[in-house]
C-alpha cells in the first residue's frame, strides 16, 4: 500500500502558538488542588507575569457547564471555566500539559482552544506533552512562554517549584494523618493553611529546601490522641477529582472529621518527579511500577488513565492491612469504568470493602455524605470484629 497520506508539517504536540510577544505574556493555567503555588514560583522566577484563576466554585462550574458539550467529563468543564476566568482577569497565555493516549485528556486543549476562540478571546495556548522526552518538552514550553535564556533562572525556578511541590505533599500527608487524631478540633487544618501560606511566600532556594523539615516539626507539635483506634482508608481514582477539593466535595476533610485516616495514593509532587526525572536518576520504585507489580493478577497491560494504579493500589491495600477503599471518578470517565468493572473480583478475592463514588455536576451533598458514612460504619465494624478475633486468638 502506497503512503499517499500528507502528514501535517508540524506535530500537534510541538506546535505552539506565538502571536503575543514574550514580554507581554500573562500566563495562566487550570487549577488542580494546590499546583498553583509551585507553578507560580517557577514561572515568576523565569520572569513572567502570572494570573491565577479563582478557586473552583459553583460559579466556575456553572460557567464550564454552560460552555462545553454535554458528553464531556467533569475535569474538562472545570478547566474551561478556569481558562475563561483567567482570560477575563487579564491572562493572554494559557498553559496545559497533556499525556496523550491516556483518555479524553489529550483532546482537552484542542477543544478548549476552539471553544474559547469561538467565544471571541485572543490568547496563545501552549501545550506540552508528557509522553516521551518530557523534560525537553517541558523546558521548551517554558522557554517559549518566557524567552528566558538564563540557565540559573531555570535552575532556581525548577528547584523552587520542586521543593514547594514536596513541601505541599508533605503538609497534605501530615494533615491527613493528624486530622482524625487531633485533640483540639481544627488544629491541623490551621497548621496546614499556615504552611501553605508560608510556602507560597518563600522565595529563596535554601529556605524552600528547609520547608519540609519545618512542616514535619510543626505538625509534630499538634497534640494528638495516640491511643485512638483509627481505621485507615485509601483514596483512589481519577487524578483530577482526587486532587481537586471542590469537585470531590472535600472528601478528605469529611473523612478526617469522621475519625478516619485517609491515605491518598496520588500525590502530585510524587507523580511529577517520576514523570520528569530521567530514569537513571530515579532509583526508588515509583508508585506506578508498584501498582503494575501488584495488579499483575488482574491486569496484564496498562490501558490508559489511572486504571492500573487504581487496581494495583487496591491489591496493595488489601495485602497491607488497610481497612477500606474509596474510589472516586467523574461521570463517564472511560478508564475508571474499566476499574469499576474489575472491582467486584478484587473485592471478592482480596476481601477488602470498596466504595465507588461517581461525581458530576449534579452530585447532591446529602446523599454523598450518607453513602460515605454508611461505608465508614461498615469499615469500623469490620475493624472492631477483626480486633476482637485477634484478641481471642492471643488469649
Amino acid at each position: 500500500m502506497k503512503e499517499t497520506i500528507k502528514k501535517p508539517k508540524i506535530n500537534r504536540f510541538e506546535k505552539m502558538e506565538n502571536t503575543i510577544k514574550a514580554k507581554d505574556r500573562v500566563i495562566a493555567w487550570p487549577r488542580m488542588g494546590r499546583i498553583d503555588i509551585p507553578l507560580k514560583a517557577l514561572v515568576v522566577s523565569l520572569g513572567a507575569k502570572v494570573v491565577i484563576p479563582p478557586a473552583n466554585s459553583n460559579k466556575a462550574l456553572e460557567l464550564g457547564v454552560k460552555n462545553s458539550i454535554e458528553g464531556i467529563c467533569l475535569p474538562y468543564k472545570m478547566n474551561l471555566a478556569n481558562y475563561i476566568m483567567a482570560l477575563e482577569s487579564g491572562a493572554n497565555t494559557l498553559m496545559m500539559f497533556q499525556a496523550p493516549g491516556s483518555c479524553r485528556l489529550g483532546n482537552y486543549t484542542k477543544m478548549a482552544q476552539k471553544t474559547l476562540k469561538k467565544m471571541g478571546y485572543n490568547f496563545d495556548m501552549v501545550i506540552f506533552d508528557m509522553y516521551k522526552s518530557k523534560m525537553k518538552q517541558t523546558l521548551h514550553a517554558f522557554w517559549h512562554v518566557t524567552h528566558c535564556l538564563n540557565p540559573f533562572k531555570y535552575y532556581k525556578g525548577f528547584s523552587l517549584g520542586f521543593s514547594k511541590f514536596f513541601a505541599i505533599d508533605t503538609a497534605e500527608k501530615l494533615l491527613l494523618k493528624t486530622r482524625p487524631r487531633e485533640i483540639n478540633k481544627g488544629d491541623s487544618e490551621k497548621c496546614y493553611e499556615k504552611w501553605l501560606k508560608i510556602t507560597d511566600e518563600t522565595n529563596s532556594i535554601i529556605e524552600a529546601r528547609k520547608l519540609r523539615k519545618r512542616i514535619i516539626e510543626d505538625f509534630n507539635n499538634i497534640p494528638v490522641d495516640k491511643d485512638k483506634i483509627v481505621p485507615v482508608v485509601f483514596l483512589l481514582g481519577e487524578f483530577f477529582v482526587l486532587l481537586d477539593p471542590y469537585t470531590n466535595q472535600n472528601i478528605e476533610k469529611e473523612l478526617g472529621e469522621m475519625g478516619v485516616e485517609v491515605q491518598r495514593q496520588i500525590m502530585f509532587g510524587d507523580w511529577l518527579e517520576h514523570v520528569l526525572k530521567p530514569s537513571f536518576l530515579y532509583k526508588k520504585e515509583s508508585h506506578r511500577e508498584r501498582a503494575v507489580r501488584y495488579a499483575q493478577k488482574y491486569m496484564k497491560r496498562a490501558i490508559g488513565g489511572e486504571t492500573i494504579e487504581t487496581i494495583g493500589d487496591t491489591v496493595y491495600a488489601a495485602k497491607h492491612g488497610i481497612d477500606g477503599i474509596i474510589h472516586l471518578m467523574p461521570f463517564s470517565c472511560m478508564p475508571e469504568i474499566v476499574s469499576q468493572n474489575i472491582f467486584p473480583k478484587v473485592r471478592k478475592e482480596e476481601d477488602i470493602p470498596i466504595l465507588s463514588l461517581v461525581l458530576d455536576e449534579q452530585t447532591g451533598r446529602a446523599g454523598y455524605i450518607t453513602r460515605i458514612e454508611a461505608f465508614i460504619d461498615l469499615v469500623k465494624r469490620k475493624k472492631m470484629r477483626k480486633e476482637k478475633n485477634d484478641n481471642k486468638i492471643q488469649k
Partner: protein
Amino acid sequence: MQQSRQKKIGIPRAISYYNNYPFYYGFFNTLGFEVILSDKTTTKLINDGCKYVVSDTCLPVKVYVGHVINLLDKGINTIFVPSIQSVAHKINNCTKIRGLPEIIRNVVNRPFKMIEPTLDKTENIGFEDFWFETARQLDITDKDLIKNAIAQGWEMYNNFTKMVKSGIPYSRAIENSINGIFENNPVELVKPLSVVIMAHGYNLFDDRISMKLIQKLEHMGVKSYTGLNVSREDAINSIHALDEIQYWANELDLTGAAAYYMLNKKIDGIIALSAFGCGPDSLMVDEIDYHAKIKGIPMIHLTIDEHTGEAGFITRIEAFVDMLTRKNRKQLQDKYGSKKLITPVKQKEEERVLTNSLA
C-alpha cells in the same frame, strides 16, 4: 493436521468483528481453526451482558460481554479477545476497547482460554507481532504458516474493503469475501436524498443496536454513505483539510467519513449515531457539528442505549428526512422560481436589494 482441523476458535460478533472479520477469518482458517461466531445480537443477549458489567459501561461493551457469554454457552473454550491499543504512533483507541481482555477476564467467572494479543504501535508492538503473539498463544510456532496466514487474511480483507467501497451492502460484502467471491459490478442506487452516517462499525452494522438504520433510510428514499465507502487516505486527508488531527484509532469511521463527504460530495445531511456515554464520540460529533454549522449542512445526533425504543428512534429519523426534503424543495424552488410563494412586497424588496447590489 487432522487433529488441528477440529480445533475451534470463537469470535464474538461485536466491536472489532465488524471492521476486521474477513481478516480474522482468513488468518484462523489458514492456521487450521474452525471459526465459530456468536449469534446475532438480540435483546436477550444484551440483557445477559448487562448482568455482568456495571451500569455505567457503554452499550457496545455490554454487547461484547453478551457475545462472549453466548460463545461460552455454545461450548467454545478458546475465544479471541484482542486488545487494540494504538494503530499508529500516539493514535490510541478508546480505553474500554484497549481493556477488553481485562474486562472479560475479571467479569466472566468461567474457565476458558482467552487469546489476548496486543497491538500497540506507540510502544512498537507492530501488526506482525500482533499476529505472531496470537499464534504463540494458540501454540503454533511455524513461522511460514503464520506468514501465509497473514497474507491470506490480507487478501480477504482487501477484497472486502474493495467491495464495500464500490457500494455493495455490508452484509453481502462480508459473505462474499469469506466465500472467496469478488463482486465488481454494484447496483448504483439513485435516491433523491443522500446522507453520510458517522458511526462506528459495531454500532451501525449491528442490526439490533442500530435498528437497521440504513434500510430504514433506504425506504424513506435516502441513500446513505458510511465510513467503509471512504478509503483510509481520503479520510485522513479530509480530516487534515478541515484543520483537525486524528486522535482516536477508530476516528476514520466517523470524522473521516463525515469530513470527506462534507468536502467532496454533495450530501444533504449528516447523521451521527453513537452509544450513550461514549467518550470518543462525544468529542468527534462535536467536532463535526462545529464544521457542519459553518458549512450549513444539517446534522442530527442519535444516541442509543439498551433502552432505546424503536418508535421514538424512527420518529426522529423521519423528522430529519422530512426537514431535508423540505430544504431541498426550497432550494429547487429558489433556483427555478416555480411556485414561488413570496408576497409581491417581499419580491419587490428582493429586487431592490438585487439592483442595489448590481449597481
